[in-house]
């Protein structure tokens, strides 16, 4: 049926094109006869696109038969539509990115089995949980990332607080109050900056600590669960309230850039709930500050003290509808990138990735935040990322995020927020 429509469209179109325009077609060259292979990458990490291009060029130098074209589409929701249109129009990339279980399910018909790649075998335990499909591994993590409370060492020192000792909620609260009382002396506008506009700060990252517990921090387990209890919701409320009450206001007006660029980087707040990815942003604004004065501690959660939530936000998938030669070339490239000696260097020093793979023991991470993530990750003092289980489902944007925002802006009680969230999740899972 679909084919019928498409054929109709195509044939009418072909005629029309001939009439009105000089078509400039680019044919899909299948290169199985020739040794030369062309592969394309469409990836979702815009900020690293330049680096990926350089890596692709380097790879071509080493393997002259393989030409890699890298392109990128970013900004969250934009990636999936572009990938879909490329697939449905027959221009699918050889290598694409997947954001979690929902994407794994969505693009199931494209995903090649990567279980036998060197990279998959070298992956850190747990990093492949979210990309298992019928027992096969269909994705390879870009990297691991971690988040916590990123703090300003200078301010903490001036205020007389030792960040590394803030391992419980009580200690953190006391420290916050202490800092708050010296606000004018420290030259800050608030202890925190809670960006109420960026829904994912609360719904994905923070909630992960309290919701993910039930599922052992395993995204796939949560994705397949029928229900959710949200037993740790009181602790989450305490954490939200703390950030909110000591935040520069109004919280509903703050977004990522006011949190990171405007307040934290300029020394206007003592700490923010963020992850290692903010390093390059801060560096752009104040190189010295980024290098010397940033630190990160885990968010204190009862029962998970001194553990950092570490996980993967993007995975590589290989398109199984491409020729075997292309698929092989794609897998070889990824293996080279993550397991070869040169590749590893590029991963750490060029991409600034915290590796999700074994064999990087002697690596020295280039910046203060990735060093923290790397340290916790190597020491296995981590909490898993369960939130990819719901970021691709309608519950997150339609139920969880609006309810949290309603609470944050004082329009709704916490009890209702929790009740709505649980109800929404259970309904969604039931209809799956």
């Amino acid at each position, binding site marked *: 049926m679909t084919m019928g429509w*498409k054929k109709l469209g195509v044939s009418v179109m072909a005629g029309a094109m001939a009439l009105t325009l000089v078509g400039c077609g680019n044919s899909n060259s299948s290169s199985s006869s020739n040794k030369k292979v062309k592969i394309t990458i469409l990836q979702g990490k815009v900020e690293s696109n330049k680096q990926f291009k350089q890596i692709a060029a380097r790879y071509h130098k080493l393997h002259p038969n393989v030409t890699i074209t890298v392109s990128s589409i970013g900004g969250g929701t934009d990636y999936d539509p572009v990938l879909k249109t490329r697939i449905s*129009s027959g221009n699918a990339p050889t290598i694409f990115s997947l954001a979690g279980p929902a994407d794994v399910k969505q693009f199931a018909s494209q995903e090649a089995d990567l279980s036998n790649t060197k990279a998959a075998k070298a992956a850190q335990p747990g990093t492949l949980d979210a990309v298992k499909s019928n027992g096969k591994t269909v994705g390879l993590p870009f990297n691991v990332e971690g988040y916590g409370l990123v703090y300003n060492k200078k301010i903490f020192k001036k205020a007389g607080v030792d960040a590394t000792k803030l391992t419980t909620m009580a200690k953190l609260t006391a420290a916050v109050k202490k800092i708050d009382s010296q606000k004018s002396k420290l030259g800050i506008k608030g202890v925190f900056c809670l960006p109420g506009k960026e829904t994912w700060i609360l719904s994905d990252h923070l909630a992960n600590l309290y919701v993910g517990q039930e599922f052992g921090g395993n995204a796939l387990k949560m994705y397949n669960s029928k229900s959710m209890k949200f037993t740790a919701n009181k602790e989450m409320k305490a954490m939200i309230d703390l950030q909110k009450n000591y935040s520069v206001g109004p919280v509903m007006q703050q977004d990522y*850039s006011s949190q990171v660029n405007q307040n934290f*980087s300029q020394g206007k707040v003592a700490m923010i709930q963020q992850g290692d990815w903010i390093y390059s942003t801060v560096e752009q604004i104040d190189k010295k500050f980024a290098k010397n004065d940033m630190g990160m501690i885990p968010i204190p959660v009862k029962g998970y003290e001194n553990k950092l939530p570490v996980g993967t936000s993007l995975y590589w998938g290989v398109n199984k509808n491409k020729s075997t030669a292309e698929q092989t070339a794609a897998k070889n490239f990824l293996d080279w990138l993550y397991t070869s000696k040169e590749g590893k260097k590029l991963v750490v020093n060029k991409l600034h990735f915290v590796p999700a793979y074994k064999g990087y023991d002697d690596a020295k991470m280039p910046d203060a935040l990735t060093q923290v993530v790397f340290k916790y990750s190597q020491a296995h003092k981590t909490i898993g990322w369960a939130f990819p289980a719901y970021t691709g489902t309608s519950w997150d944007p339609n139920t969880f995020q609006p309810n949290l925002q309603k609470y944050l802006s004082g329009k709704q009680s916490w009890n209702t927020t929790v009740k709505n969230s649980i109800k929404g999740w259970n309904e969604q899972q039931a209809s799956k």
Partner: protein
Amino acid sequence: MKKTSRFFLGILGLLLGIIWLFPFYMILTNSFKTPKGIFASVLSLPGNGQATTTNYNNSFKALDFISSLGHSLLITVVSVLILVLFSSMAAYALQRNKSKLSGALLMLFVSAMLIPFQTVMIPLTANFGQAHMLNMWGLMFMYLGFDASLSIFLYQGTMGSIPIAMDESAELEGANRFQIFFKIVFPMLTPITVTVGILNIIAIWNDYLLPSLVLPQNQYTIPLQMFFFFGQYTKQWHLALAGLTLSIIPVIIFYIFAQRYIIKGVTDGAVK
């Protein structure tokens, strides 16, 4: 008009103009600030050691400005020429033939304007992809499909003011339909052609979503390149604002140049 009222109109215009220009002031001033300077105070003038012109340099390089400007220009100019040509022809056919069929066709064009782009984008790109038309030529054709309706609508509204005697006179003198249109009617449409041209140039020049779905990376336009400044987490405002300033300049120059055609109608002296 009295001198005083002219003066007050001038004052009113000045005030409104300032309000309208305020965001541009922000773009321009902040494009000359370091990232730290932007967030220290968005409203102030560049200064306090936070002034810089390196944003332009960096942005120019990051945008691959010369080549993306070339793509933007090529796509915009060709698309608009196609649009102006075919939509004025279609509007002429519909306006000069007052029949039920013409009315129905006009309605068809108008109703196409109401279809939200997002609902057609996947089937559209799928079809064009299979015809190997996901490139700048395919994009130009798509612009004809998406923007012809508005252009026809605008043309149709003013074409009525050209007396049909013009056509008839030329017809008696032996001109065929195409000669009548291109030699007589189309030149008289210049003011609305300029309007249609400007509106389409701006829409196409700034378009992001459609080209992002259609263009291969080696044909990227300025807005597409610019979005590399807008990552999921990091918005590189200092580069984006400089790039934005760079990309607006050609359009402003064009607009100022074209404006006089909008101001003066050329139908003067056609009749009576």
